[in-house]
């Protein structure tokens, strides 16, 4: 199994940390992982993206031009990454703030109301975990228990009290992802 993912959105949405938690979850179940962020000038202007690869085998290139899955969280990223999904691949997006919806017919498209659900749960910071839940429902490449282990590893101990909230957010995401 090799899953090549791009996660893209605004800076501050938790794009990089969502990728990091996914990568840590892969390590927890003994897989190879890589996490490569856009850094420097690419980040100026408010967009952030990260390429995450989770694989049973040694990972070759950490940078890619085509992905199995794109998780898209703003319009600029939609414009840039819709076309990079491999035929037969998956595109998951939060329709909040998207004016031009994806049109490709050769990929599977899902929506997850991440921003809305996080607001309803009373904490907009768990937005990225709702989206992660949506992704994991569509592509169950890592087990939920390993995500929780990954969270424990990647969060400082003083934030461990927030893990149940994050778990709830992931579960809500899993329940609410829908085919577009």
């Amino acid at each position, binding site marked *: 199994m090799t899953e090549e993912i791009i996660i893209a959105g605004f800076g501050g949405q938790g794009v990089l940390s969502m990728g990091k938690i996914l990568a840590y979850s892969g390590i927890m179940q003994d897989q190879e*992982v890589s996490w*490569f962020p856009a850094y420097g000038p690419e980040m100026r202007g408010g967009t952030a993206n990260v390429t995450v690869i989770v694989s049973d085998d040694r990972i070759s290139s*950490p*940078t890619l031009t085509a992905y199995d899955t794109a998780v898209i969280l703003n319009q600029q990223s939609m414009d840039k990454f819709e076309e990079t999904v491999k035929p037969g691949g998956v595109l998951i997006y939060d329709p909040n703030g998207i004016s031009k919806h994806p049109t490709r017919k050769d990929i599977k498209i899902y929506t997850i109301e991440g921003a809305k659900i996080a607001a309803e749960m009373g904490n907009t910071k768990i937005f990225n975990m709702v989206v992660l839940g949506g992704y994991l429902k569509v592509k169950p490449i890592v087990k939920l228990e390993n995500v929780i282990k990954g969270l424990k590893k990647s969060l400082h101990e003083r934030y461990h009290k927030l893990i149940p909230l994050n778990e709830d957010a992931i579960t809500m995401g899993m329940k609410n992802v829908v085919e577009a």
Partner: protein
Amino acid sequence: MGELRLMKGNEALAEAAIRAGTDGYFGYPITPQSEVIEYLMAEKPHERTGMVVLQAESEVASINMLYGGGGTGKKVMTSSSSPGISLMQEGLSYMAGGEIPCIVANIVRGGPGLGDIQPAQSDYFQSVKGGGHGDYRLPVLAPASVQEMSDFVPIAYELAFKYRTPVLIVSDGLIGQMMEKVELFDQMPRLTDEEINEKYPWGTNGKPKGQERRILTSLDLDPHKLEKHNFKLQEKYRTIEENEVQYELIDCEDAEYIIVAYGSSARISQKAVQLAREEGIKVGILRPITLWPFPKNAIDELVVGGVKGFLSVEMSAGQMVEDVKLTVRERTKVDHFGRYGGVIHSPEEVLEALKSKIIGG
């Protein structure tokens, strides 16, 4: 099994510096390398091992602190990125001349000049052909993963002290900024002053009564004496060339074509090889792990074995390709492909170049 962590290449390098028993790290921040000193400052290694971490006032100060520290037989290290490494060249030349061990890590970015802060491999010439003035060479290690960013630190120290020379670790913004799984090696003890004195009888760490004066210098105004010193250095470089070449062959058993690539280009090329093999093209990778000494014999064996062409893939306008050509000596086709100035080539572009420049060219 050692401790498993998800780390950036820069962080792995920093953690490995602590664990390898470094006595002093002296550095100055520069993107895309700043996580090294940032990690070290946050980690407070003086509380873990007694290791000193100091932000110097400049790169020039850092390299000269290495001259002083390394001259006493301590394990010392710095890191920077291309423009900062250029500033250090004078110091590196002096240390090569004075035979002072140290590690200098270069997380290469686009150039020339201030360039940009994106990944590049355009410091190959500077790393392997000298960089500073005078007849000298430095062993150069090129990690291609976060794991190797950690593993190569103790290897670099071993080379540095075995041959009394600065050793370069040449990586780039891609390996420095990305995170991968890394298995950390166990903490190695820092040497005591007594151990250093015993192991390194050249260290200028104080002159007890009756001990001969120890002098570490690159200056000798007598040309005949300086020539003799140079003979000694050259002999050392020949020994390193004979004994310290490291490389990796990937999918080369049945390969008709070979991509020569190091560091992140080797990673990207591995994906290109997968794509090529899906199309039935038999291509493998020769990955130099030491850029100097360069794996000439390995290339020679591939030529003798009947390889039809070599493509040197580097994020530069074509630097390592010159060493490939020097080895192949027109016995078969050699060409270069690479994006540069901070642009990272894609696996598809590498495959396309292989087809147009080597297979069909």
